[in-house]
């Protein structure tokens, strides 16, 4: 049975720590990894648009000396002819050594893992999970703060459909000494199952608020998210909520000097571009780290070492 990454908890904290260490070593010594995946092929099956995730997977595999194949929309696959997801994945698993897939339906990677003969990496399934973004976030936090414990993190924006938030809360809940503040409109609060599964079941306290300004001075990390148009059935609701929180330099006046501002990107307008010049904005570093943690993950799932 191949090893898959469907949910971040498929990895133990020891495995996550090892992946972070490998990614940091790649950052320091990229040349040592340039042939690790020679003659291996990564298939990127993206049934939903993506810039960063798909290209970072492809860039990661190429940097490891491997090759890539795949498609970037459902329209350019046999899905358009009515082929089932499981048949598509079964087919591709006969060609490739590892598959990274994104799908708009929740649980699609779990379904794929039931039929695949090679490792499946969940590259985002609807509003559900996005574990490789979580690994990217963890690497960013680790590099910015030096550890994965002992800080206050605020999650702001669309916490209901924000799959990156769900996965990151789930991952961080296994590390000690973290205080959680959830900032969102009432309609976009963190889903009950995430609070129960990740926090309540582990007796981890958390705070929920609709006001970003009131909690800003307490935060060591601010994780901003986009209100995602594609997750709404009703455009009126989207238009009403999309500008709920826009981060500007003025709103950061009360923030700690060593705050780290993360965002999984893409952004629309929830972070003003003026914030990009603030040294506390680390979301462009976060993008860069995404490639290196995916290199570490591909090697891990293929059982390869330099």
């Amino acid at each position, binding site marked *: 049975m191949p090893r898959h990454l469907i949910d971040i908890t498929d990895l133990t904290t020891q495995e996550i720590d090892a992946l972070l260490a490998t990614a940091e070593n790649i950052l320091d010594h990229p040349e040592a990894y340039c042939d690790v995946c020679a003659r291996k092929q990564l298939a990127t099956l993206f049934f939903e648009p993506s810039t960063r995730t798909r290209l970072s997977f492809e860039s990661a595999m190429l940097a490891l000396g491997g090759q890539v194949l795949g498609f970037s929309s459902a329209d350019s696959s046999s899905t358009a002819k009515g082929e*089932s*997801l*499981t048949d598509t994945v079964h087919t591709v698993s006969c060609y490739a050594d590892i598959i990274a897939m994104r*799908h*708009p*339906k*929740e*649980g*699609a990677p*779990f*379904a794929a893992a039931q039929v695949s003969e090679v490792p499946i990496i969940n590259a985002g*399934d*609807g*509003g*559900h999970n996005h574990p490789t973004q979580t690994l990217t976030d963890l690497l960013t936090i680790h590099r910015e703060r030096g550890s994965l414990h002992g800080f206050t993190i605020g999650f702001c924006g669309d916490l209901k459909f924000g799959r990156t938030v769900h996965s990151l809360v789930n991952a961080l809940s296994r590390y000690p000494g973290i205080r959680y503040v959830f900032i969102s409109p009432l309609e976009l609060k963190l889903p*009950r*199952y995430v609070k*129960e*599964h990740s926090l309540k079941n582990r007796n981890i306290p958390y705070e929920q608020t609709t006001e970003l300004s009131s909690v800003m001075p307490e935060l060591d990390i601010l994780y901003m998210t986009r209100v995602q148009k594609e997750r709404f059935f009703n455009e009126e609701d989207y238009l009403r909520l999309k500008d709920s929180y826009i981060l500007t330099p003025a709103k950061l006046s009360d923030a700690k000097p060593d705050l780290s501002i993360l965002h999984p990107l893409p952004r629309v307008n929830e972070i003003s571009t003026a914030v990009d010049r603030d040294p506390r904005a680390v979301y462009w570093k976060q993008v860069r780290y995404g490639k290196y943690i995916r290199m570490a993950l591909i090697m891990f799932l293929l059982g390869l070492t330099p």
Partner: protein
Amino acid sequence: MNIDSIQNGVVLDHIRAGKSMLIYQYLHLDTLNCSVAIIQNARSVRMGKKDIIKVDTPMELDLDVLGYFDSNITVNIIRDGKLVDKKHVELPKKLVNVIRCRNPRCITMAEEHLDAIFLLSDPVRHTYRCAYCDTATDKTFP
């Protein structure tokens, strides 16, 4: 009321009163070609009222279905007119193709050939979660 004893078959006892037809449907007892007796609102010392189902043929029962709908049910196996085994069902850890996910964004809604898999996440509240999308189905007797 007089219902004949069965010689070889199964008696489902201690069904919550009024729920026997639901069990009948979920176990597909309507497809059997034998006598099936449904007794509703029988007197019970323990429960006040209860339902009973008697099936007059030996059969394999899906104990997971029974455990999911009512973990108080007892399953009595009858052979040659005698009780030879009594089984107590319990909440199953995993349900396959018993209930369907109600999340419209779940892959099982789009691809109906997929097995509907639910995992027990909270035994106290009888909560199950879809193995694909994590959507909870609180266990309430429908």
